[in-house]
């Protein structure tokens, strides 16, 4: 099977100002990548390029043709910022993530149930999204991404606002999905956690990226 993502001498930035230069990395199916680096190091910039929101200044960024369709891409943001007073149930929240896939209501309901079971939140469909704990909310975000049945899951600092126990639990969840053949890219500051779960690490420093394999 070919690479899902391949960056060759890639330069990315905003306008003509480069943020990342000379990036070379290849993401193969089934791998678990952790991208480490300080704020502003360019991790999110590369995520934007992968999901098609940013064009390279120079170099090449090749995606597997299957990833050309956003249907095959799952995205987990750091947090959700909509009004806490808006009544959104867990079921509705995950269902919204299936918008644009052309699924019938019954199919969507089934996917919501499956996704919640995968993140061990069965039975919480009717709960209000904001009534959940921070850790549960992050699991719901993962469930929403998994409900799309993606080939590649990109999680942008999903554990940033969680206590250590909840963060550890979330990493275990993502690792379990990777072992079940999902490819994962996790943007994180947690070096220890990354070493525990990642098959590959990418360190973002001073506009460049260095890659290393791990024993996982």
């Amino acid at each position, binding site marked *: 099977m070919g690479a899902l993502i391949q960056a060759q001498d890639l330069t990315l930035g905003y306008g003509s100002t480069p943020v990342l230069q000379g990036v070379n990395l290849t993401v193969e199916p089934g791998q678990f990548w952790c991208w480490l680096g300080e704020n502003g190091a360019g991790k999110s910039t590369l995520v934007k390029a992968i*999901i098609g*929101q940013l064009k390279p200044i120079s170099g090449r960024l090749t995606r597997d043709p299957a990833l050309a*369709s*956003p*249907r095959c*891409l799952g*995205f*987990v*943001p750091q947090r*959700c*910022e*909509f*009004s806490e*007073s*808006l*009544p*959104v*149930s867990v*079921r*509705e929240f995950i*269902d*919204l*993530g299936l*918008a*644009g896939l052309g699924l019938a209501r019954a199919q969507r309901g089934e996917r919501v149930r499956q996704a919640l079971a995968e993140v061990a939140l069965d039975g919480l469909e*009717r709960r*209000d999204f904001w009534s959940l704990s921070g850790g549960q909310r992050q699991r719901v975000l993962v469930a*929403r*991404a998994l409900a*799309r049945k993606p080939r590649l899951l*990109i999680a942008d600092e999903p554990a940033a606002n969680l206590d250590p126990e909840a963060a550890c639990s979330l990493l275990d969840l993502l690792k379990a999905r990777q072992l079940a053949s999902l490819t994962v890219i996790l943007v994180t500051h947690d070096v220890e956690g990354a070493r525990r779960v990642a098959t590959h690490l990418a360190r973002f420093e001073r506009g460049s990226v260095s890659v290393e394999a791990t024993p996982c």
Partner: protein
Amino acid sequence: MLSDFVASWEIFYTSYLAGLFIALALSLPGIIVIARDQIFIGAATAQASMLGVTLAMFIGGAAVASLPQTWATQPIVERKAEPRLEGDDALDAFMREEGIREEPKVHTHPRPLEAYYWHERLRLALNTDGFRSLLGASMAVLAALLTARRRGQEALTGWVFLVGASGSVLAASHSAHGLEEVHRLVSSSLIGATDLDVATFAALAAGSVMATLALGRRLLFATIDPWTAQAAGLRVGLLAALINVWLGLGLGLAIKTSGMLFSFGALVLPALIARTFCREVRQMALWVPLIAAGGALVAFFLAHALNYPPGQVAVALWCLLLALAAPASRLKAR
């Protein structure tokens, strides 16, 4: 009492129907406004629309003042040549020789008639309700696009509100009945709605319902989590622009007919009421139009029975429902 209200329908049906359709058309986009937590944008957009309406009045007045006095004061019919009968020329010549009749003005007009009609039509066009609605809606769409681009734009929203509020008074200050019109637009009056208004807002209401049915989930996804929605392939920018244009268009057109109070109230109050007891946004999309239209209908009945202005009664009723629903919802949650 009910029979009196039914009997009044024949006289006030345009006002009632326009009010109902405005409530329907605005209440559904109101869900997105509430979801964005940008209620004040509704007020700023409404105020910008008022500025558009008063600017249109100012432009119309300036057009009248800038035309030559004779053009502005003499009716068109005087400038048209009257039908000539056989023998009229000879009779005219004889009467002029005898000093009985002056030279007819129509034959000495210094400008081509086409030019005269073009200017006159422009002057009339600039003084129509249509021009005022157009400018009001344009300003509202502009304001909605400007202020609703992203969260945390309170300073810009406040600026738009203040420019709209002060500008509308300034623009109307020197036009005939201008300040009266500003007062009417602020305080709201549904009386005087026309059949065209009813048709316009019926179309807008139908558009709101269809957009909610066809795009509701996408619009909500793009609103509450734009970053993820974009990653999922939704055209977030296009959807946001669609919402803002629809919001501006609805508010902009409604202001001229129903005034700021009723339009702003119909935009946010039904959604705020539904939010207190609904468990999902999908339920809100069912309840909001019911609260909007049902509340407006009850309010029109009360307004007729108690002899109060209908727009204000509707807003007061929605406010009362919100005041009752919020604590009731908290009690139920306990």
